[in-house]
């Protein structure tokens, strides 16, 4: 029975307009996957970098999956939020990336985007914060309808993931 360990961290994010950021993350898998241990979703702390643009979270990810098949390989979806000086949180970006399928240590840069509202909304956003968000976050990783959205590119989230695969070779998956 094939097992997959995903061990790593969400290092941080850079390239966002403001740098006091936090991140909500989750792992999405297909039906064949079974979580053995670990938390598959979570939220980082808010990092307010004193110097530099990059917000560091160093948020640990440690998951242990087993699977019946290859379909639905885990995907990581992220939401980057910004907490302003008033303590209000607003969405700064959605992003998703596939968990690498080769064992070893991987540096992943996950680019994010944000839905762009109408000009009124944008003006409101600059003054009072907030902003358009997806009604159903599923769109993040099922991109069929995403082309209808007007979006804006935001920064990148950096991840470091170590992948350990076990017994995949028994089922003909060479790594």
């Amino acid at each position, binding site marked *: *029975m*094939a097992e997959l360990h995903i061990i790593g961290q969400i290092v941080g994010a850079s390239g966002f307009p403001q740098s006091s950021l936090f991140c909500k993350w989750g792992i999405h898998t*297909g*039906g*064949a996957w*079974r*979580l*053995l*241990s*670990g938390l598959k979703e979570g939220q980082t702390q808010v990092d307010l970098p004193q110097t530099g643009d990059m917000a560091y979270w160093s948020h640990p990810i440690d998951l*242990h999956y*087993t*699977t*019946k*098949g*290859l*379909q*639905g390989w885990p995907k990581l979806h992220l939401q980057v939020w910004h907490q302003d000086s008033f303590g209000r949180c607003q969405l700064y970006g959605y992003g998703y990336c596939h968990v690498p399928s080769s064992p070893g240590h991987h540096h992943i840069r996950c680019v994010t985007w944000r839905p762009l509202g109408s000009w009124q909304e944008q003006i409101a956003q600059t003054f009072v914060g907030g902003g358009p968000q997806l009604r159903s976050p599923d769109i993040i990783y099922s991109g069929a309808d995403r082309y209808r959205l007007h979006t804006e590119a935001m920064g990148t989230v950096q991840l470091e993931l170590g992948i350990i695969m076990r017994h995949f070779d*028994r*089922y003909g998956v060479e790594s």
Partner: protein
Amino acid sequence: MASSSDLREKLRKKRRALQHSLQVKDDVDADTQALVPTQKEAGQTHIEVLTAGEEEPGDALRRNLKAQRQSRRRKLEQAPAGDASVMEAHYKTMVEVTAVQQISQKDEKAEELAVISSPTHSQRGDLPPRSRATPTPSSSHSESSTMRQRMRDKLRAARSKAESLLQQEASLEVPGSRLQSLRDRQPLTRFDQETDPDLKAGGDVNPSPLNPRVKFREAVRRVRMESKPETGLPTAEEAYNFFTFNFDPEHDKEAEKIQKGRTRREAEYEEGEEEEGEEEEGEEEEITEVDREPDGEDAERDDSAPLVREEEELFIVDKSAHDFLVVKRAEYMGYQQRLQSENDVLFTPSFLSVPASSKVPENMQPRYLEEEGLYVGERPPISLTNQNILENRILKQEQGRKWFGDDGRIMALPDPIKESSTRPPLFHMEDDVDPALQAIFRKALKSKHASQYIAVGGEMNGDYQLDVDVSGLIFSHHALFSREHVLGARLAQLYDQQLSRQHRNLTEHLNTKLNGLRNAVRNMLEMHAGHGLTPIMQQRICEYKQELRNTRRLRDAEQDKDRSLLKSIIKVWKEIKALRDFQRFTNTPYKLYLRREDVERASDERRYEAEIQAEVDELQGEMEEDYQRKLTEYKRQQEEWKTWRRRQKAKKKKTKKKKTQSQDDADEDDDEDDLSDGVAELGPSKPDPPEEPDMEGVEEQVREKASRIRRKPGEPILVPELTASGPITSNEQCPRGEVARREDVTKRSLFTKVLYNDKEVSRTDNRSLNSDFRVHFGQIFNLKIVNWPESIKLQVFEVLGSSTTLLADVFVPVPDSSILTGSALSEELEFSSNLRVMFDHEAVGSDVPFSFEADGSNRQTLLTSGKLSCCVSWAVGEDNIPLAPPTTLPKAMYSGLKQLDAIACIGASSLNDMKKLGEWATESRLDPNDPNNSAIMQLLKVASSGVVTAPEYFRLEQLQEEFNFVKEENLEQSRRFRLLRLRNQEVADFRNYKFVPALEREVTDKVFQEYERRLREGVIVDTKDHLDAHRALVAKYLQKIRESIFNRFLVAKHNFILSDLVQEEEVPTIGILGLNLFKLAEPKRPLKPRRKERKKVTAQNLSDGDIRLLLNVIRAYNIPVRKPYANKPSVASKSSRSFTETFTAGQPSQRAIQGSDWILNQVQVRPFVEVSFQRTVLQTTTADGPNPCWNEDLQLPFSAPNGDYSTASLQSVKDEVFINIFDEFYYELGGEGEDRGREVHTRLEKHWLGSVKIPFSTIYFQSRIDGTFKVDTPQVLLGYSKERSLSSDGGYDTMRSLNEGAFITLFITIEPQLVPGEPIREKFESQESERLLQVSEAFERDAATRYPDRPCLTTVIDINGKTVFITRYIRPLKPPQELLDAFPNNPQEATELIARYVSLIPSLPDSVSFTGVCDLWSTCDQFLALLAGDEEEHAVLLCNYFLSLGMKAWLIIGTAIPEGPTAYVLTFEQNRYLIWNPSSGQCYGQYDTFCPLQTVGCLVSADNVWFNTQVYTSPPRICFDTTKAKLWKPFFSRAIPNPGLSSVQPEELAYRRTDQAAAAALQDRMEKILKDKIMEWRPRHPTRWNRYCTSTLRQFLPKLELSGGRDVADEHRLELQTLLGDYRISGFPLHLPFSEVRPIVEAVYSTGVHNVETSNVEFALAVRLKCR
């Protein structure tokens, strides 16, 4: 190495010399400082040993140390035992020497000094340590220190010699040079060593790269190796040195520095008043310093010389960085200077205008073309300054002039840029624009097949090639066909058909099959003619016959077709001939020959006949069979009908008989009637008999059919042959219409376009149409493709002049990737066009009706149609690699085609209807063993099993099942995964499982057994552990409550707040700093030390072994004392101090005298404390007397369950600390035999005296426990008597007796201090009014802020998790009547009995069961039902009982030791306040110093709560008068009146009578269990039970119970002694509340009864269970 022995010899000599000198010195030493005569001797022996040691230094050293030790031992033996100071001094020396020895083993050169000097220390070992450790300048003048100084100098000299020897050894190549004066030598540094070739060449300085230290070490090692020749291996230390030694010479320098520092320090010390030398001055200063040593010590002059030399060597390094570095100022160049220098280098063109003369060639005037009338364009505008600069610069260049024109200006072209656009603007209105030019905005379109690129994989980077070979086309009909062409085409078609049939030769095939089948049937029948056929055979024959019939039918059809085809061919040919004759020219070259093959008539006829006969026979057989079957069917039906009819008749008859008894005539009529009636009703109709088969007709039929479809016998076989060799009539001889048609034909030409994925790729050349309407293209197109082939289409175009018409689209199937060029066959693809074409000449046109007949009848319409022969295949690359896309991507291909069906992907595409396929397969009788059919059979099997049916649902995860690695069940079955998941879910059993095995097989089923059992037996009560069904139920119930609360708690636990995660050190404020400063001034060792607050440790980073339980046993009071034993039972010894002796001795005998003597001599008691915790047992030393003082620290390791040190887990630790007091008892056993009198054997016994139990949870929550505890002593201790004080004679007997118990003072804490879990303050729902809750919250908050250490409780949580106001729990409740009846006249006795009754209810702390969540209060009836509860429940019940007796009683909420926050009961009686401990049943007076209650927080009565606002909290110092508002703050006051809260307690308590029989059974069981346990604890000794004693004990127990354990001890002992005679008895009754077996077993174990190891010991044990 050869000379190493010599060297060693030398070394030895040196050593000996040294020792001699030491001896000399020692003499001096002894003269001056000898303190103890023995010491001198010791020193001498030591010296002797030293001199005796003639081996290597290391060995000598070791020996020397050993000798020291020995000598010291000797000294010890000789010294008087009382001389403690000497001993101590020795001890210290010993310590020092051993320390030195350890250091010396490190082989540090620096320590070498100390090593060699160790003999001095040891010699002067008896000196007080102070004088030895005096390197202060003040004592430098003392004689001893000068002595020492000398000593040290000598040593140093010796050492340097030894070192030089070693160095010599190192530089064996250049011996001798070592000893030259080193002072003459040049100072040497590390750097020089590398660079100076002279020194290298000299080789005398440091010839080997190894530094002296290494050498020395090597020498030592070698020495040691030799000293231990038997061990060939290196020692561990050597190995360590080898691997860890750093060979970097830099360290050497450091070491030298250290050395230097030391020597310098010594030098300074020698000089005494010498000030600090300037370090910068370097070595010279040092040397002079050393030189200036007092000359008085001439004897040592020689010795000091090498010392100086050595120093010099060491100071070589003193060349510091200053010698090589120069400090320079930062370089700076002045501004002006810099400008100057820059000016020298740089050229700055001037911006002044250049004179014109320098710009034009010499002797020339500038010439202005403009003035000469020539056109000069306008120069582009440039600023004058820039122009000047440029000019200046250019002039400096070589040939700079050439840039200037004749006019002296820089050459420039006119500005080419036009100022404005020269193009005329377009001014039209929008509608004026030509419509063709108008643009329409279209949205960007998504490409249809955007995602259909072939997945590029590997090196075959999209290098795929399709070859499309368009060879040609043949029209089967064309608009330009003449009639003859039509016929000709038809003929050709028929002929083709004929050819293909001939090729397949189905008829012949079927004929053979038929014959074969016939033969098989015949054979089978013949073989089994004799015997009856088995059913299988019959079945098979039946099948064969069926098969025969089918085949015959097929064969007949085929023959029919053959024949009709032949006929039609002939017919068409005849028509053509007729047409040719009619039009008198031929258009087509077709010519049909009929080849005739003659056959032999006779044999043919015979075969024909035989065939017919066989057929007839078969038919007849079949018919016969059919008839038989029908006949049987008929008979069966007939039979049925008859029975039915009979039944009907009988029924009718019965009714008839009833109706008309006398009507006996006309029976038949009746019958007829009945019959008609029956038929009319229902039931089978009368069946018709089957017809006889017409045997004669069969032959007729067969013959008729044969003549129709078959060749007549003897008739020749006709084989048609079509050739196209016939002549075509030339144009001249044709009529005009025909000529026109032919001209028209020649005008036409055809070409083909190749379209790939609906895009035109290429087209063929134009080919003109021939008269035979065949076009040959013969072109191959190679298509390099990137997209997946979706469609390949060929379009046939016809060109007439300039116009092209699309005739037809021909779709070519995309070839399979295995079809490659070269091996592919060309296909003929039919096409047709529905174009309507009409002509006015001979051609028939297309889609136009025409007729062959003259009269225009029999019209037919033909469409243009034809066959295109082409071939599409995948190309083959140069190295024979097919350029086809990989076949492993069928899915991608299908996805491109949007055919996403699982079954289609498997390969059975387009077989949507499984049923039809199945039918076809069974019908066609596929051979299941044929490998070709395996795929279909497989599919059918799957289909018939119903797993894969036509999908009527939408699949979310396509192909999930097909591609699964494993099944769902396998995942579920995996034990390892289960373990992982359970751990992740934090299921209690697996929560702290640290390591999960990596392999499946390492996870045993055992892991889950417990868990599964628990799941399975959720409801089933296990009575084995509990002995009592009721208690088991209670335990289960509690377990359930605990689990549900725990789950709630788990959720809450995962919600962290900031302080859980971030630990922030508080920034010290000024105040704290000031306090800390104050602390500096505190005395280091205060007279009354206080325990300091320690830093608390959060539990998360702890592991096993980190936590210890510190237990300080301080002292005890009132330990029971031994009573003398009387050997004879009749003579009771009299304890002189025993005050309540209830009996007197009969005769004062010798024994009695002995007894008093015994008392005087014998110790009263020798108690010691044994602490056991988690099966670790530690004990103190033994003290003497009934009031012993131990003051000992015991450390007990603590390990949490499962190694989980989280708060929750620690809270649930149920272990208890047992503190047992034992009496240590010596028995003297006489020696055996001859040894009697000379040897004395003693045996140690320990007798249990009492115990204190403290649960770990209490210690954990309070972090420390400090106080005096009453020792739980049994009421009767055989052989011991309690000392009683004479003071008490008050009204309360109990009071007095209570004070008489033994007490022990303890301090218990946990190291490191743990943070107890914060109880989660959850909001619970409540039925109290909102206002009350608010007030109570405010009350509690106020209390907490003002008096943070006083517990205040107004609302509590009941067992249902609801908040209840506390006063609701107080209500008078009547105790059991029997308790009241026991002492009707003595209310004091009654109250005591009640208190005892309450205390006997087992206690179960909530904090253990509900870890840190909350305290649950149950009502009294729940409490009595559960039979388990906390202190609160006990207190509430006791309070309620007291109230019902008419006493004044309150509930005290306070803290006590060891319980911590708890509840007590306060009563007011006879002007005295009494405090009752509800869980022990004891009562204390208000001023009782041993009262465990420490703090009184508040008092609770049935109608109010008072909070203690007094200064003090301890009971003796406060006033309990609640009416005083200053002292007690009431909850309900005038502002907030009591709303009259009703009680939650029941009206009355119902007491169940207990089942005495069950109790007795339980008692027996328990006794058996305990006996078994005791035997189990004594595995190495036989355990004998004294039945007689046991039965006696059984009799005593009820008495004990009745008397409450008082005043029976002595009677008891007396009685037992009477009974048991000469036995020595020790024992005690234990009195425990019963809830489970385990605590009782624990209690028995902790007394250590089983540890008696006397050989002939006998045990007696009795259990009495008293139930109420």
